[in-house]
């Protein structure tokens, strides 16, 4: 059952005044933006909420025994099970409600997983959960590799990125395969709400969390979350990279409501004024995982990064019904 729509008041002051539900004292690296993402997400709740997490950095750093950084009911079982947990929680809540044993009118369920726990190992659980139509919000914080176990490549790692299992050297120049378009794959599941978000555009992120909770049925939110440890980047610039990814259209912001794509403001402004679209090198330079792309023999890889970015941007514009300008 859906709760009464609550007024959105997402001004900086409202958010700053709201107490954190993802608490200080977690053990993430300094400058870890996935933790900023969790702090922000937890400020968009509309009522009683249960969070469940897949194994990964954000689960580990927030639940080192006997400490917890969660001020809401929270469950972890395994790496591949975020969406399976959410399915079970939602089904249990329904049963309790039916038996008159739930004291709340409604309880929201949020599943959180990294890219490894979403694109790869957690995917069948996720695909099944949304196919069954469970009412929950799945948040993917995408730091583009298996960071917690030492920076291994995942289906979410971009082509060309150096990881410990796709090292840049004489044999290969970083990861050979393109980043899997996971959010489009979730749209193809014909669920009511899919969106992408970036923490620099914090209000957009909060609004999308709230929409994902409000919608009846499954919702999927793909958040780019720079990891200075794995990206080998300046920890002070983690939020800056989340902005540059949007400004270069490497990670455009959009939402698909009942399959209907639309650009979110930051990306719409670029679509309307294409001269604002920055070259991908503005995003890639400074990230150690892409350093080798800037050597002369890898010029073609840098060009390919721009090409796939442009191609995916053009395809997105078409889906949003915006005609591509040169």
């Amino acid at each position, binding site marked *: 059952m859906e709760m009464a729509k609550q007024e959105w008041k997402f001004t*900086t*002051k409202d*958010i*700053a*005044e709201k107490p*954190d539900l*993802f*608490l*200080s*004292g*977690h*053990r*993430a*690296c*300094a*400058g*870890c*933006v996935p*933790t*900023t993402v969790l*702090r*922000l997400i937890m400020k968009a709740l509309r009522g009683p909420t249960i969070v469940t997490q897949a194994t990964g950095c954000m689960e580990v750093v*927030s*639940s*080192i*025994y*006997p*400490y*917890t*950084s969660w*001020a809401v009911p929270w*469950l972890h079982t395994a790496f591949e099970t975020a969406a399976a947990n959410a399915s079970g929680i939602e089904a249990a809540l329904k049963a309790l409600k039916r038996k008159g044993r739930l004291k709340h009118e409604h309880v929201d369920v949020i599943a959180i997983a990294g890219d490894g726990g979403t694109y790869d190992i957690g995917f069948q659980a996720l695909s099944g959960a949304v196919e069954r139509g469970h009412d929950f919000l799945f948040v993917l914080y995408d730091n583009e590799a298996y960071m917690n176990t030492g920076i291994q490549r995942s289906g979410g790692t971009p082509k060309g990125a150096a990881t410990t299992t796709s090292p840049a050297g004489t044999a290969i120049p970083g990861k050979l395969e393109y980043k899997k378009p996971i959010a489009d794959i979730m749209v193809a599941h014909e669920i009511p709400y899919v969106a992408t978000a970036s*923490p620099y555009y*914090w209000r957009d992120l909060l609004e999308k969390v709230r929409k994902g909770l409000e919608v009846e049925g499954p919702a999927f939110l793909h958040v780019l979350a720079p990891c*200075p440890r794995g990206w080998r980047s*300046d*920890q*002070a*610039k*983690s*939020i*800056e990279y989340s902005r540059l990814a949007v400004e270069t259209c490497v990670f455009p912001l959009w939402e698909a409501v009942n399959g209907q794509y639309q650009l979110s403001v930051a990306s719409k402004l670029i679509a309307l004024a294409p001269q604002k679209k920055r070259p991908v090198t503005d995003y890639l330079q400074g990230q150690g995982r892409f350093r080798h792309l800037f050597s002369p023999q890898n010029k073609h890889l840098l060009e390919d990064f721009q090409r796939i970015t442009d191609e995916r941007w053009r395809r997105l514009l078409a889906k949003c019904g915006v005609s591509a300008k040169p």
Partner: protein
Amino acid sequence: MSAREKSWKEIAPAGVCSRTSTTFLTGDWKTYMPVRDLEKCTRCLLCVLFCPDGAIHWKQEKSDIEFDYNFCKGCGICANECPTKAITMKVE
């Protein structure tokens, strides 16, 4: 005692983390600490939103922000994102 000797009804249902992480101070991780120029700060609160460690608080009664150095890890995100460049990172 091996788990085989207990039925599922007898074993602990789960590990329960019972202490909040706010009792675990991470402030001593830092090398640099953020220092704010009160003249330059416009109280825009962006640093409060972006801090990964929830180490900057908005104090309504003072109409001002406050750093919590018990948790600040010295990442410098606040300094990098401050629109007026009011924050500088100083060696602790």
